[in-house]
C-alpha cells in the first residue's frame, strides 16, 4: 500500500499546528519507523497516515487516489486495508477473547480459529482469553490490542508506541511479526521512543520528527 502525504498541516485547535508541511511517501512494503521527542507530532502523523484524521491542509494520496476526495463508501472500502493500534489500548467491555475478535466481528469476517489460536499460543494469551478486560494488566491490555490489529491482516498497520508495557520477549515476538508482514507485502508504520534493536534491523526507513516537521530521514 502506498501512502503519500503532500504538504500536510494539521491543527487540533486552529491556532497551533501539530504537523507543519509534511511531505512523506511510504512507498511499497516495509517497516517505517517514526521517532521524535514528546509532542513532535508522531501520533498525529500516524493517525493521518492511518486515514483516521483528515488533515487541516494538504493531501493524503493512497495508491494514487486522494483519499479525502473520495465519497464515504469509497473511503470505507479503503479504510478496511488499514489498522491503527493506539498507544493507550482502547478495549471494550467483555473478555479478552471478545476484544481480540472485535475487529473481525465488526467487519463481518469469519473468525478463524487457526489464526486466533496461532497468536494466542505465540503471545501466551491462553490464560487471558476468558478474563474480563477490567482485570488485565497494562501490558496484557496492550498485547490484546496489538494482536487484535494483527488478526485483521491489514495492508497497512500503524502502531503507536507498541513496545510500551511489553516485556523483552514479547517485544521481540512483535518485531518478528512486523517483519513478517513487511516480507508479505504489507506496510508497517511504528511510532516509538524506544528503538528496539530488531526493529531497526528490519526497518526500511527511520523518520525523525521534530516540532511537527520531518527533521531527518534515514534509509536503512
Amino acid at each position: 500500500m502506498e501512502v503519500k502525504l503532500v504538504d500536510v498541516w494539521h491543527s487540533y485547535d486552529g491556532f497551533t499546528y501539530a504537523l507543519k508541511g509534511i511531505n512523506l511517501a511510504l512507498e511499497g512494503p516495509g517497516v517505517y519507523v517514526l521517532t521524535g521527542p514528546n509532542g513532535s507530532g508522531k501520533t498525529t502523523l500516524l493517525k493521518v497516515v492511518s486515514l483516521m484524521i483528515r488533515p487541516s491542509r494538504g493531501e493524503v494520496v493512497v495508491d494514487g487516489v486522494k483519499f479525502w476526495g473520495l465519497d464515504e463508501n469509497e473511503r470505507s472500502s479503503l479504510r478496511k486495508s488499514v489498522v491503527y493500534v493506539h498507544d493507550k489500548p482502547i478495549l471494550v467491555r467483555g473478555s479478552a477473547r471478545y476484544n481480540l475478535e472485535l475487529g473481525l466481528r465488526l467487519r463481518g469476517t469469519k473468525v478463524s480459529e487457526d489464526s486466533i489460536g496461532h497468536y494466542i499460543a505465540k503471545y501466551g494469551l491462553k490464560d487471558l482469553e476468558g478474563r474480563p478486560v477490567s482485570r488485565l494488566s497494562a501490558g496484557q491490555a496492550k498485547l490484546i490490542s496489538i494482536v487484535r490489529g494483527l488478526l485483521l491482516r491489514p495492508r497497512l498497520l500503524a502502531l503507536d508506541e507498541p513496545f510500551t508495557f511489553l516485556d523483552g520477549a514479547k517485544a521481540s515476538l512483535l518485531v518478528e511479526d512486523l517483519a513478517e508482514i513487511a516480507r508479505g507485502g504489507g506496510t508497517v508504520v511504528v511510532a516509538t521512543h524506544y528503538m528496539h534493536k530488531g526493529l531497526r534491523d528490519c526497518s526500511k526507513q527511520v523518520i525523525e520528527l521534530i516540532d511537527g516537521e520531518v527533521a531527518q530521514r534515514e534509509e536503512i
Partner: protein
Amino acid sequence: MSESILSITLRSLYVSSTAALIAFALAIALSAILARAPRKRAEMVLGVFEALVGVPTTVIGLFVYMLLYPHGPLGFMRLLYTPIAIVIGQFLVALPMAFTSMFRSFYELKEGVRELVLSLGCSEKHTTKVLLRELAPVLTSSYLLAFSRAIGELGVALIVGGGIEGYTSVLTTAIAVRTSIGDYELAIQIGLILLCITTSLALILKAFGERVLWR
C-alpha cells in the same frame, strides 16, 4: 376498598413502565443528537436538565393539568383523569432523570468508541453498535432510575389522575387516600409493595447485569 391491591399494582407498573420507556427512548435520542454538539453547548443543555430533576412533581402535575384541562390547549383530547394523563406527567418527571444519568457517559464514550472503530478499519456506521453495547450498564441504570422516579411520584398521579378507584388509582395515590381516611394498615401494605418493586428490580438488574450485560 373494592379494588384489589394486585389491580392497583399492575396499573402502576403499566403506567410507570410506559412513561419511563418513552422518557428513556427520548433521552437516548437527545443524547445521540447532543453528543455531536460542541462540549460547551452540550454542558449547557445538561445543566438545564439537571435543574429540571429537582422540579417538584406537583409543579409538573399542575403544568400537565393546565395542558389537559377541558379549556386548556389539549383539552379537546379529553385525557384528564385517565391513565394516559398520568403517563404524560410521569414521562415529564422521568425524562430529566433518564437524560442526566446517561448523557455524560454517552458523551465521554462516544469519542473513544469512534476512535476504536476507525482504528480497526471500520466505518463510522459501526460506532453506534459498539457504543450501545458499551453503554448497556449505564442505559440499564438510566431506565431503572427513570422507572423508580415515575412509580414513586405522587404529585402528577394525584393531580392529573385523580386517584379514581378502578381506573386511575396507582400505588402512590392509593397510599395517600388510605392514609387520609386512617386505613394505615392497608397504606403500609401498599407502601411495602412499592418498596419491594423498586428494590427487587434494582437487585435483579444488578445481578443480571453483572452476569450478562456488564461484563
